[in-house]
């Protein structure tokens, strides 16, 4: 399933006008895809301000290369690829300075975990007992601990809702690779969550 804002036909119309030199036709494209791109960049980078900067650069890059966009593809997919590239570049520049707000298990705020019995456990897990804001912060932190490839598939599939085919196009990998990466990524994230808070 692909969650796309706006129809493909509308994107194509504005893209065509942009390719013809109409600068203001790019504004609707920005308006439609800015939130999704920002979330993609934020989940990849882990910092909101940095994600805003990355997305701006990504939109500029898209505008510069709008004439190279093949109109048979989806604009959102093409734009997502640009955002991922910008995010990678940004992370490289940070050179492994991922801000991990890990909390030790000895932190008083650490919630004692019940044994994880999988999804069939009737009792709410420790993660579920966290406040939502804390939970989201914990998940984001766990995402940042994953390697980039696993993080990308998780974000594109479980957060962005892209299909396996689209993810394959964006990451330029076969569908099998997308699936295996996704499975491993989810398990890795789970382990991280257990390590941080207990799931």
């Amino acid at each position: 399933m692909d969650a796309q804002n706006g129809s493909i036909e509308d994107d194509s119309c504005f893209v065509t006008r942009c390719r013809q030199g109409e600068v203001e036709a790019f504004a609707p494209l920005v308006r439609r895809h800015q939130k999704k791109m920002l979330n993609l960049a934020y989940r990849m980078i882990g910092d909101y301000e940095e994600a805003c900067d990355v997305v701006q650069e990504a939109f500029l890059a898209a505008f510069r290369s709008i004439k190279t966009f093949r109109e048979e593809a989806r604009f959102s997919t093409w734009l997502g690829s640009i955002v991922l590239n910008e995010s990678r570049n940004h992370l490289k520049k940070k050179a492994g300075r991922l801000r991990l707000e890990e909390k030790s298990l000895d932190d008083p705020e650490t919630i004692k975990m019940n044994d994880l019995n999988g999804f069939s456990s009737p009792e709410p897990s420790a993660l579920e007992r966290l406040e939502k804001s804390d939970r989201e912060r914990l998940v984001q932190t766990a995402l940042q601990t994953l390697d980039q490839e696993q993080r990308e598939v998780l974000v594109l599939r479980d957060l962005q809702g892209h299909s396996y085919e689209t993810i394959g196009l964006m990451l330029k990998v076969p569908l099998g690779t997308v699936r295996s990466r996704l499975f491993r990524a989810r398990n890795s994230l789970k382990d991280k969550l257990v390590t941080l808070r207990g799931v």
Partner: protein
Amino acid sequence: MICREIEDQLPLYLEDLLAPKEKGLLEEHLSVCPFCRQRLADSKKTEEILKDLEEVEAPPFFEERIMARVREEAGEKKSFLQKLFFPIRIKVPIQALTTVLIAVLAVYLYQQNEPEIKPNLIPPPPYQEPAKGSGPTDFSPAPQPPKVVLPARPAPEKDLIKKEPEAFAPAPPAADIREGTRKEKATGPLEEEKPAIEKPGGPIRAMKDKEDVSPRLSAFTRGSERVEKQEAGSGFETSSLERKGERVLAQKKALAREEKAGRSSSPVLSKGEGTRNDRPGTVEVIVLARQMEQAVREIEERLIRMGARVIEQKHLAGKAFLKTEIAVPQIGVLLDTLEGMGKVIFNQKTLEGQEGQVILTIQILTYPNPDQPEPK
């Protein structure tokens, strides 16, 4: 099916994307493998956790910030000409310079093609020599370009009166002259002058001989007209010329009358004045008054009231002379006044043929005893 093989299919199993046969095999494995069941559960849980994450919102004016940078990016791609003319700091000076150049060019072209405007001077009338032998008096100068010839004298009229009193003919009223002209019988020179008469002058006859009548010219003499037109600001001299011309005409009239009458116009007691053909008539009268001084004053006052002009006054031993310019019709009135002062001696014949103004010389003598016999 081994656990390692399950890993690739579990995400599809969760999404129910496996074929029925593969799905059956997977479920059979899961029933006997708790590890795979755990991993399936973890995968499902994680998916749910991630999907439960809320999306972050874009900051305020995020779209505007992006578009501002996009427009800036687009502006850098303008063509050279667009860059040249769009910025106001370049466009305005260029436009101003172009305007100045166009204005300078327009002025230059106008000056090049502007027609030469020369003062449209009135061409002087063609100079014509006066007829030879015509000039009793040459009011007009010798044949020369039309320039002012008359000397610039402030009061030529007075000078003429003093130096040549008998020759001076004051400007008569135009009507008199015209009247005289009309009354004048046809003679050669006078006839020729008629059409030009209003203020005749010397050269009239000469000019008329040549039949050079310009429609623009009035009845004024050619010579005087020429001088009038050419003399700027010398109206006094022009008017004196006119009076001279009038005098000449009067003298000619007098000459013509003398010739006709065959007599001289000199009075009994004439002292020789007025005998010249070109001078106005002169008349003399003698008054024998008891009181000479008183008589002189009374005569002067009377002459002033009559509008006569006292030209000269002399006092000698026992005698007084008053010379006045008076109209002929007024002489009779004056004689009546003089008779009231004393004895008047006057030759009436001296008035015959006189017209217009005459020079009247009044000699006042003291006659102590009116009973004494009249001097002869």
